[in-house]
């Protein structure tokens, strides 16, 4: 089936008819450090637990938060023999995670109490300013309440502590370093700045388990048994195997490097025991959004949804002349009544510079136009909370005034009003003087008659 949403004059509202089809049973860190291109190369196998697409920075930060970094304290705690237990930086105390990174955490992000709205506001402000300074870009524009929104229906799990802000198109500062060599050749260095957000999963829930990694701890009888019963084949037998059953389910294989010599070097190979067939499944929902109409006067925004199994749609619209009462719903190319399909509706009418997620557009003051005005105004993508789909961006052209002549407009208008005031007052005043002159003549005539 195909459901197509139309609305004249550019608006989209949020409504929901949600089914709970997907639950998270576990997660697994990727061996590829987040470099694997799943959409292009596949790799999503239902036989294996859903994989976490973690980048290198995310993996490091996650290990930092879970205290899994190989600091000397952690190595000692796992009975690994080390020579020096002191911190290599200061040499005074034992190397621990907290002493390295806790201040960095405080400088970057504030802890957010999910129950406080003001808390999420302060955190949002701090985050947007930090990112703006880091990237030397206009990311701090999302701080203002005119550019973010709190779509409660689309993200129901984060009710009350959610901020959603996007900059559809932003001219980014491209940093390029170049050095001249004596031989005349020029080489450049491109700096690629990224931000990785690490989220701590709530692994204390009852439904969470680690089936894949728990397999390694089933038979704890010795190195040979682990070598055979694991999901992979080890080419070299470890000297010792540590299984931490009390705190977590990780397994540590120990290979002392000092036992190997120049002629017999350490070479470890991992071989999967079972072949894995990976494929890219089709998406359960396809969403497309486009603008309709012609010219700069009339138009509509349409969202096309296919293969529907329940959806939540919301769009962060920055538009002024929008009419909610012109919303139309077309199901399988036939118009339908809105109440038959829409279960819940949340409307936040646009108001200039006040309401969240809304900004005046189309006919703005000259100070309110974006830097490249003739490019138009981007409408951020609509949120379709099926499992977190997003529609593409839209670009709506602006109707621009002439930026070159504010003084001409001011002077011409003031001249016209001065002309009106002067000429009308002149007409009123001129009559008074003439009438007085007429009465004077009448007096002379009366005097003349008296003498005659």
């Amino acid at each position, binding site marked *: 089936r195909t459901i197509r949403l139309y609305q004249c004059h550019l608006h989209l509202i949020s409504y929901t008819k949600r089914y709970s089809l997907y639950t998270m049973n576990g997660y697994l860190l990727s061996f590829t450090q987040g470099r694997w291109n799943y959409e292009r190369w596949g790799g999503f196998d239902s036989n294996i637990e859903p994989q976490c697409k973690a980048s290198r920075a995310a993996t490091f930060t996650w290990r930092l938060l879970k205290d899994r970094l190989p600091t000397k304290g952690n190595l000692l705690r796992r009975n690994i023999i080390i020579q020096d237990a002191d911190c290599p930086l200061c040499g005074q105390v034992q190397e621990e995670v907290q002493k390295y990174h806790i201040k960095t955490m405080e400088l970057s992000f504030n802890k957010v109490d999910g129950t406080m709205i003001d808390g999420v506001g302060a955190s949002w402000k701090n985050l947007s300013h930090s990112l703006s300074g880091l990237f030397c870009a206009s990311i701090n524009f999302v701080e203002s309440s005119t550019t973010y929104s709190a779509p409660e229906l689309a993200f129901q799990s984060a009710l009350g502590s959610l901020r959603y802000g996007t900059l559809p198109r932003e001219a980014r500062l491209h940093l390029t370093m170049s050095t001249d060599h004596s031989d005349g050749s020029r080489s450049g260095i491109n700096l690629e700045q990224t931000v990785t957000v690490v989220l701590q999963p709530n692994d204390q829930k009852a439904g969470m388990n680690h089936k894949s990694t728990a397999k390694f701890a089933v038979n704890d009888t010795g190195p040979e048994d682990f070598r055979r019963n694991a999901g992979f084949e080890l080419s070299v037998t470890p000297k010792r195997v540590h299984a931490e059953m009390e705190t977590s389910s990780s397994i540590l294989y120990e290979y002392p490097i000092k036992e190997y010599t120049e002629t017999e070097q350490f070479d470890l190979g991992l071989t999967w025991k079972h072949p894995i067939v990976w494929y890219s499944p089709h998406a359960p929902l396809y969403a497309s959004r486009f603008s309709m109409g012609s010219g700069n*006067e009339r138009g509509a925004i349409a969202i096309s949804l296919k293969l529907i199994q329940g959806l939540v749609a919301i769009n962060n619209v920055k538009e002024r002349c929008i009419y909610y009462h012109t919303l139309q719903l077309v199901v399988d190319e036939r118009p339908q009544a809105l109440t038959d399909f829409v279960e819940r509706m949340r*409307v936040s009418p646009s108001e*200039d510079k006040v309401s969240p997620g809304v900004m005046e557009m189309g006919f703005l003051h000259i100070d309110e136009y974006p830097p490249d005005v003739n490019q138009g105004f981007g409408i951020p993508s609509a949120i379709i909370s099926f499992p977190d789909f997003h529609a593409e961006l839209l670009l709506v052209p602006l109707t621009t005034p002439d930026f070159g002549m*504010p003084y001409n407009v001011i002077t011409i208008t003031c001249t*016209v009003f001065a002309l009106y005031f002067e000429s009308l007052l002149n007409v009123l005043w001129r*009559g008074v003087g003439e009438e007085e002159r007429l009465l004077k003549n009448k007096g002379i005539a009366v005097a003349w008659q008296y003498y005659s």
Partner: protein
Amino acid sequence: MMKKKVQWFWTWVLGSVVLRLILLFFPKNLNLSSRPEVSTPLTSLRRLAEGYWLKQSSLSPYAGSMYHGSPLLLTLLGPLTVRRIEGQPDHLLCSLVFVIADVVSAMLICAAGEKLKVAYISSLQSLGLHNLTENSEFLPSGDFAALVYLWNPFTIVACVGLSTSAIENLMVVLSLYGACSRLAPLAAFGWVMATHLSLYPAILIIPVILLLGYGPDAPPRKLFCQRKNLEGGNSIPSDSCSEEEAKNQLKVANVFSWRPVVLFLFWALLWSSYVLVLCGIYVQQYGGLQELFKRTYGFILTIQDLSPNIGVLWYFFAEVFDFFRNFFLIVFHGNILLMIAPLALRLNHRPCFLAFVYIVISSMLKSYPSVGDSALYLGLLGLFAYELKDMQFSFFLFSGYIGVSLLSPVMHNLWIWRGTGNANFYFATAIAYVCLQIILVVESVSAMLNHDRKLTKLYTAKLQNIKS
């Protein structure tokens, strides 16, 4: 003669109604309801429909930046916007309401014109200027003004384009008719509703009070004083009945009657309280009267919406710097108030014409003007066709209005649709339109004052003849 004349008048009235109905049933070709000359943020029926939809969705009708009109108008017209008849154009019932409002406005203009003519003839006869009254017998200014209003293209476009200015014009004409007829409750109702709908008719309280106090338009009051002195000074031998009648007429024409004015103020206070109570009941769950005033009259006075229209203030405040915005807001709104006192002092013997001048000035200087405002004052201009027959630049004004009417859609198309022009094209048309209105108001005031001077000369010459 009389029957033939009435038949001629009603034939033209019926023709205008038929023309409106024909245009109403072909809206796809015209699409006038989205024209910036017709629909302003205050008079657009689509914004009223949006406000009504928000009201039905348990939201404030003033949420967002859509609806800024009257909650009473929302209550009356809102249910008609959602009633959609199958196979008919949208908002058909609202269109019929606007047609009825136009016809009723024309009938009231006709009735007011008749009263003005009768009073004017009696004034001229009391001054002894009989030759002027003989000519005006054959000039039905009321019928003429009503037909000018009905057949004005601006009125037709505002009606077919679903503009609520037809309702506002009806209230203004109702107050003027009530004042001409010395019906204080009716005049108070019209004035209160007109002020409630669009705030600018508040300045019409001065001509309405002058109409109720002094009566309809008359020659300058000095002529009656001179005649009274002459009658008292020289005892001309004449029959006592004629002399007594003349004294009564002089007494009526010269004295300001306070009883209708007090009655009008009482009824105005009563209607205002009633309207405020109704509005307070309507918006008490959406912020109360303070929020209502902020959304309606605050929206008018602060010019928040910078969408283009046929005035000049939208582009001015889109270009002016924020530092000077409040200063220019005060200057432009003060321009309306500045000319109230000089005009009232000079034209207090012609209250209906004073009302016409006030309407032209407010149409020119208001925040969101439209062609509905022009339709009103061009219709009222027909009431003074006899007095203003010597007005200069008449043909220039006529051609100018036609030119602006044709050029404004062209410039808007070049800017918004084709992109070959820019906003200055449309702003130039708005500047030309404002200049035309300035010429109209200045020349009409000048012609009226010249007419009064001609009456003075004729009366002075008559006095000279009597003395010699």
